[in-house]
């Protein structure tokens, strides 16, 4: 397809925010532009001054946002997948001998694939904990733990069901039992308050391009005990250049090479935007949008909703007699409503809820309006009615 200028495009409703939020706040776009207008500045890497040291200010903003003490324990990566790879492979390498790890059926492939790859290489044995009532409980985790369990990785918020796991009691139990706990917070960060000073996680992973309103290519993790993860990337840090080994100091221990300055600038501006609005206000609005949308959806015959009380602004459903990809295509092309269809990179959840066929996912952000929710529900109603009528007429012809 040829490029269509912005002012010539058909207006659309964007409901794929659980993948990447859109639009971005104007402050974010302006910060990225400002970052690129100036030479980059980071201590140790340049003699220049006067520009913003984005990695440092963004790290401090993240520490404040997550109520964590040590800004240097926040590491920037390309995205949550990159962070999970670094943590999982680094933990396995550091442990040095085979052990048992636990993941859950709610997890994304960003967790499942790195763990499966370690399992295939014989470095770990892996158990998948099932979910009940859309959540993974501490009891289910306890049941899966063996004497040789060293690692638990689980999603904080399901990208399909919109359910949020109660990670605090799980983190406390695992800490007591000396089991490292990695939480994938890609779906919860920026939607609900997260207080890392109160939850003893081993590591907490976030992404920048979803509800933190950063641009794609941003993410990272917080780590409480950096020495539990082996250093798997080496290179320039702007410090200790005489030594040929990677510095142990944070954040250079895990950050190497030129940082993604414009991306980190966008993350910094996204955090400022959230703080200006107020996370509580954002959470309230998103929950109201979600509740209203679910209410409208429930009134449409032939709709199966997989969690009708999600905590996150994520609603997954199927329409009777129409494949989810077809429904998504129709919504996009005939109604200009952008959703996400298929397995959402979470195959085990779908295996449980829809037999692995996939579904349609609608996900909201601060920038969606109640009118957009209603227009989307109206469009889904038309699609459902049309699919139903077609099936009835086919049956009548037989």
């Amino acid at each position, binding site marked *: *397809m040829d490029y269509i200028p912005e002012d010539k495009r058909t207006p659309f409703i964007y409901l794929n925010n659980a993948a990447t939020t859109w639009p971005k706040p104007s402050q974010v776009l302006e910060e990225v532009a400002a970052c690129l207008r100036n030479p980059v500045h980071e201590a140790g890497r340049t003699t220049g001054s006067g520009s913003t040291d984005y990695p440092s200010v963004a790290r401090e903003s993240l520490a404040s946002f997550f109520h964590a003490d040590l800004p240097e324990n926040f590491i920037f990566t390309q995205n949550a997948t990159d962070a999970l790879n670094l943590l999982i492979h680094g933990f396995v390498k550091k442990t040095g001998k085979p052990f048992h790890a636990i993941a859950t059926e709610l997890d994304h492939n960003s967790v499942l694939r790195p763990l499966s790859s370690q399992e295939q290489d014989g470095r770990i044995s892996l158990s998948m904990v099932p979910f009940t009532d859309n959540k993974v409980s501490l009891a289910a985790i306890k049941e899966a733990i063996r004497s040789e369990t060293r690692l638990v990785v689980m999603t904080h918020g399901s990208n399909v069901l919109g359910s949020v796991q109660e990670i605090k009691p799980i983190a406390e139990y695992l800490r007591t039992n000396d089991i490292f706990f990695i939480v994938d917070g890609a779906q919860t960060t920026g939607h609900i308050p997260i207080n890392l000073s109160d939850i003893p996680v081993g590591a907490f992973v976030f992404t920048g391009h979803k509800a933190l309103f950063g641009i794609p290519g941003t993410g990272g993790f917080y780590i409480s005990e950096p020495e539990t993860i082996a250093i798997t990337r080496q290179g320039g840090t702007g410090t200790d250049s005489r030594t040929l080994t990677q510095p142990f100091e944070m954040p250079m221990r895990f950050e190497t090479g030129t940082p993604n300055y414009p991306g980190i600038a966008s993350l910094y501006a996204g955090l400022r935007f959230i703080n200006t609005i107020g996370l509580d206000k954002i959470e309230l609005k998103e929950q109201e949008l979600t509740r209203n949308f679910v209410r409208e959806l429930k009134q449409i015959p032939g709709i199966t909703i997989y969690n009708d009380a999600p905590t996150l602004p994520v609603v997954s459903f199927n329409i009777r007699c*129409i494949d989810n990809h*077809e429904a998504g*295509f*129709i919504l996009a*092309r*005939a*109604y200009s409503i952008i959703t996400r269809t298929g397995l959402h990179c979470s195959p085990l959840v779908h295996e449980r809820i829809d037999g692995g066929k996939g579904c349609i996912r609608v996900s909201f952000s601060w920038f969606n309006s109640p009118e957009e929710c209603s227009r989307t529900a109206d*469009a889904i109603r*038309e*699609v459902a*009615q*049309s*699919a139903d*009528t*077609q099936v009835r007429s086919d049956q009548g012809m037989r």
Partner: protein
Amino acid sequence: MKEYALNEPLTEGFLKFLEQFGTVRLLEQLRKPYFSFEKEQFISIKGFVGDSIVEVRYKKEFQDLVADYFHLLLYYYDQGEQGIAHLKGQEDSIRDKMKIRLGLPKGNLT
């Protein structure tokens, strides 16, 4: 998956032609009438009647053999009734190649 921008909008006549070769599904009560075409082992097509953009997915197993199938549909549609017979002949030849690849005896490929 490939998206094609056609020279002219798709018509119901084209859908009637497609019915000769696979399963056509039409949802008429939408803002735009939606259709899908499914041909096992070959391709699936999605689009809207009156629209000139279609989405075509080729079946993975035989992608190299069916890569031109959508173009064949367009080409033979222009030939009317005669085109149907010609295209069925072409299909048989593609199916024979599929069978050879699968090591199957001649007959229906299902």
